[in-house]
């Protein structure tokens, strides 16, 4: 097979984004509606307390020709986690899947560490308004490190196949220090 490139279809710097986000449109994830496509992406704000990044989910609605932007999320799509939570400093990326009347968002939440930059986990947030906003089901993750998957569990991609939820994800085998 072969992919025909259609070109860049979205430039985040040309739009006003929620959460004071100013650049980056990472990890696009499409949710197809009857007459438009909602594309979620991760974008970034600057943490005023220390100048580091925070990642937020936003979306752009496009006509099915992918040439016309018809809407941009104008408020937070998912709140970040509270103090000490796995998704306190960002959500990047998110995988969406329809389930009945809801849309499930499997988030890759991340928070900052001291000896390494980051740790991640997979969270779940649910939308009941066609994907405009999502509510985190709880403060903790649905998938996290385990005996033989020691760190950086994240990037979950979920499909429901034959009534069974399947998640593809990544994990870290370890960190290496390059001085």
């Amino acid at each position, binding site marked *: 097979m072969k992919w025909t490139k259609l070109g860049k279809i979205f430039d985040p710097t040309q739009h006003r984004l929620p959460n004071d986000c100013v650049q980056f449109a990472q990890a696009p994830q499409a949710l197809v509606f009857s007459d438009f496509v909602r594309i979620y992406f991760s974008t970034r704000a600057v943490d005023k307390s220390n100048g580091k990044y925070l990642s937020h989910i936003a979306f752009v609605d496009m006509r099915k020709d992918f040439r016309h932007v018809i809407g941009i999320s104008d408020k937070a799509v998912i709140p970040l986690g509270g103090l*000490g939570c796995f998704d306190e400093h960002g959500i990047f990326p998110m995988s969406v899947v329809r389930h009945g009347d809801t849309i499930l968002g499997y988030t890759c939440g991340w928070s900052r560490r*001291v000896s390494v930059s980051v740790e991640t986990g997979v969270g779940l947030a649910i939308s009941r308004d066609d994907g405009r906003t999502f509510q985190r089901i*709880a403060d903790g993750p649905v998938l*996290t490190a385990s005996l033989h*998957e020691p*760190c950086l569990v994240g990037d979950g991609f979920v499909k429901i196949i034959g009534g069974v939820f399947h998640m593809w994800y990544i994990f870290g085998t370890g*960190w290496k220090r390059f001085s």
Partner: protein
Amino acid sequence: MFRWRKLGKVFTPQDIVGRSWLKEFAQAPATLVFDDFVRVYFSCRPPADANGQYVSYSAYVDLDRADLFSVRRVAERPILDLGGVGEFDEFGTYPVSVIRDGGQARAYYAGWTRCESVPFNVAIGVATSIDQGETFTKCGNGPVLSYSPDEPFVLSGPKIRRFGEAWYLWYIAGRKWKMVGERAEPVYKIRMARSLDGIHWNKVNKDLIASRVEEDEAQASPDVFYANGKYHMFFCYRYSIDYRGKNNGYRIGYASSTDLIEWTREDAKAGIDVSAEGWDAEMISYPHVFELDGVTYMAYLGDQVGRYGFGLAALEGTLD
């Protein structure tokens, strides 16, 4: 009715020399009984680093079975290595709980790492020993019990038990981080999980012990002991703020259950409190109950959560 008769402090880490990893603290005592001695695992710290930050190691002291105030031997080195860079147990292995499993011993331990917005996070690891509990090899580089939707952070204080064919793990799970001035203080509650093999765990997903002194009461060291047809849990609890002194510091509480799930808390029955003076006059914490040669003992920590060691008390009356 029962009460605990205090026997005094049994181990003082400051007395031990020649171990760079052991300067102070002997926290969270947990026993493994041998024919002629009792091995008491504890967690300790080397001096703080240049930034005033600690790491924790776990080790053991062997007490003479015929005279628990006679120290026969102290571990020459920690029972577990710290984890590698970025691993959950990079900065500490504390506390630890050890159980026999056939000819081996198995340790469940809390592994610590350092975070940016809060001081730390903790998850529970497992390791096995083929040398009678002198050294342990981790079963994996990650935790055996970690975070879940309703247990979002700070899984610590494991206590491993077996009743019948099942494995039980009592532990604590963080509920919230509470900002007190500039400092983030953890609030945690007592939880439980069950397993058929000690590796694959099912969380009960329930606070076992109702909070008493305040909603944000922190609870730790859920130590379960079976006697006289019931399960008895001794644990410790503290207030959420200003808990490093006498008024709001740790005390030992008590609860009982017939099914391990529903617990009745009756702290007034605990039968032990701070002393009027001495090494445990400000706080008492981290109880561990064990039976030895017809006597039921409680090992516990005194002031500054075990900075100066742990002591023993003996049961008077019956656990009923």
